């Protein structure tokens, strides 16, 4: 999924980041790779009880 420059800047603004125009194509490219990888995480359903909380063991 390729985001537009406007979408990238909107997301960045939520975190008070100003991305220089020259940096935007690289960010879009890398974001697309991350989205592609993240899609794999939703391929197989995880047990609803599975959660990563740290546990204190006596």
């Amino acid at each position, binding site marked *: 999924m390729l985001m537009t420059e406007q979408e*990238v800047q909107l*997301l*960045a603004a939520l*975190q*008070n*980041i*100003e*991305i*220089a125009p020259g*940096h935007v194509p*690289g*960010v879009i*490219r*890398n*974001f697309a*790779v*991350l989205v592609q*990888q*993240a899609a*794999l*995480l*939703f*391929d*197989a359903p*995880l*047990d609803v009880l*599975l*959660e*990563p909380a740290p546990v204190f063991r006596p």
Partner: protein
Amino acid sequence: MAELVALPGTATEIAAAVRRGSVSARSLIEIALARIEALDPKLNCYTERMAQRALREADAVDARISAGIDPGPLAGVPFGVKDNYDVVGRVTAAGSIVNRRLPRAERDAVLIERLTRAGAVITGTHNMDEYAYGFTTENAHYGATRNPHDPDRSAGGSSGGSAAAVAAGLCSFALGTDTNGSIRVPSSFCGIFGLKPTFGRLPRTGTFPFVHDLDHLGHFAGNTADLAAVYDVVQGFDQGEHACADLPPSPVVPRLGEALDGEVAKLGGWFDDMADDQGRDAAALVAKALGARGRTTLPGAERARAAAFVLTSASAGNLHLETLRSRADKFDPATRDRMLAGALLPANFILQAQREREAFRTEVSAAFSRHALLIAPATPCSAVLLGQATIRVAGTDLPARPNIGLLTQPLSFVGLPIVTVPIRNGPMPIGVQLIAPPWREDLALRAAAHLERTGIVGPCETNPC
């Protein structure tokens, strides 16, 4: 020009010679410094050479011997550290120029302190990918480190300067870090031995972070005995590091000769599919030599790798958020764009990646209920050319730099202890991962020692002159 002299033996042999007074620590350090002076301009392993400190510390070792005081188990052994370790009086750049505004370190990293107390002598800091975010040590600010086996090729990364320095004999061992493969990849590319212990085993006090919950410290050496000797010195809890387990040191050197007990299995599936013929053959050779009876798979490996990839980017973006806001132009472009993208990721991706890690941890635990040791190639291929854009994996051309860690990322994601051993079964060496259950570094090191004794693995000679 005078002929360049090699260090006279392994770290263990050097320390023994110094301890019995056969050779002075100063003369050894002078050899190491001469090699660095002659070879580093070609290889670019060092970001800073520390000749004065090294000679001063070597003299201190010699003085202890003259006074009849035990100089320590690593007396006179030259070593180096990745650029993300604190060295007193120096700014810890971590391969960046952004960090130049940070204050100078007031003390050495804890691991350096322990090594110095053991008589080892630091010679300098080593080149790395910026903030450890990469697998090739092609650094926009400090240049690329070249592979001592072939200077047109990468030394691997992100601890590439450290691995190349050991492979070229500029130092006897080196400290690195491994978040997604940054010790195992350079070990593989440079044909040397590497240890990434269990997450939480070694205190990271005094090192610059990359991804807090994935960062491991570890080291490189030319053989298993040296790897174990250094490991025994650096082990132990430190209260300055919250993720460090409060475990007593578990010395391995006395146990290196013990037979390996338990079942060994070669990892198939993802770890076969993403390797090339050379890597598969190397892993098969090692598995056979260790008496592996079968193969096993970790079906969640691909998702674990994806989760590690996503979390790494998000964590790096989080850690550097302030400087990404204010000085993004000072970053290596390759690092900056990935960190910025990571900072923008939806929370849903991050939460799912965390849950995926727990699922994979359960899967790996089940595998270790059946097996004592797992075997897999370390990298999808041997050392890539500097600037190489793609690697061929499973019949597809993939971008090289993010995908060199395909086989290492799933395993560090759940913090397993791993020794990488070198095999020379092609024009360039390649590494094989010996993967042990949590806290069982001894199993991986004993397996590596067995492989060395039987001649299956061993140092891969270089001729960087």
